C-alpha cells in the first residue's frame, strides 16, 4: 500500500464551482500537512499548511485534516480558470522538513481544469 494516495484526475469543473481535492494516507505518524500548487512547466509552490486535525482557511482556499480517517482535503470556492493546475498534497512527521525520515511524502498530484 502506497503511503499517500491521490486521484490523478483530470478533474474538470465549470468556473465558479466549489472544488474538492483529496488525499488519503497510511502513516498515522504524519502530523504536518501541506498542499502545493504546480502550474504547467513550473515548480510546485506551497499553498496551504496545517498541523494535526482541523480546518484552516485562506481566502478562497480551505484545508481540512481528519487524522482519525487519515484523510485530507483542499476546498476551492468560487473557482477561477487561473486555479487550473496540478495540486499535490504532502505530509511529514516533524515540523522541520529535512531529508530521509524527516522528509516530505508527496502524493502524485491531481490535475484540475476550471472551464471558463
Amino acid at each position, binding site marked *: 500500500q502506497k503511503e499517500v494516495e491521490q486521484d*490523478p484526475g483530470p478533474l474538470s469543473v465549470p468556473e465558479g464551482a466549489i472544488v474538492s481535492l483529496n488525499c488519503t494516507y497510511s502513516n498515522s505518524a504524519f502530523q*504536518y500537512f*501541506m498542499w*502545493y500548487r504546480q502550474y504547467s*512547466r*513550473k*515548480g*510546485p*509552490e*506551497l499553498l496551504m*499548511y496545517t498541523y494535526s486535525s482541523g480546518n484552516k482557511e485562506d481566502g478562497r482556499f480551505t484545508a481540512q485534516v481528519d487524522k482519525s480517517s487519515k484523510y485530507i482535503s483542499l476546498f476551492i470556492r468560487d473557482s477561477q480558470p487561473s486555479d487550473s493546475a496540478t495540486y*499535490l498534497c*504532502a505530509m*511529514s512527521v516533524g*515540523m*522541520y*522538513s*529535512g*531529508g*530521509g525520515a524527516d*522528509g*516530505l511524502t*508527496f*502524493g*502524485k*498530484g491531481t490535475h484540475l481544469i476550471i472551464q471558463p
Partner: protein
Amino acid sequence: DVKVTQSSRYLVKRTGEKVFLECVQDMDHENMFWYRQDPGLGLRLIYFSYDVKMKEKGDIPEGYSVSREKKERFSLILESASTNQTSMYLCASSLNRGQGSYGYTFGSGTRLTVV
C-alpha cells in the same frame, strides 16, 4: 523574489554526455533536494543534502551524483546521460529549524531531453 534558481529551464543533451544541473538558493537553507518528476510517477527523490559536502541517496540515485561545495549551491550530475533520464528535474530547499520553515521551496524546474 526568486529564492531557488535552477540554471536552465530547458536542456537538450546527447546520449553519453555528462550533464550538470545547477541549483542555487538564497534563503540560507540547510537542506537541499533533487527530484525528478514524470507523468504518472509523481515526484521521486534522487539525492538530498543536509549540510555542505554531505549527501544522502534518495529513492532513485542510480545514474546520478551530486555535489554541494557551498551551502547555497547543489549540483546534480548525470554521469552518462541516457534517454530514460529525459524528465523534469526539480531542486528544492528547506530549513532545519526556525520560524516559517514550512515544507520545501522549489525551483522552476529544468526540462531535460536526452536524444
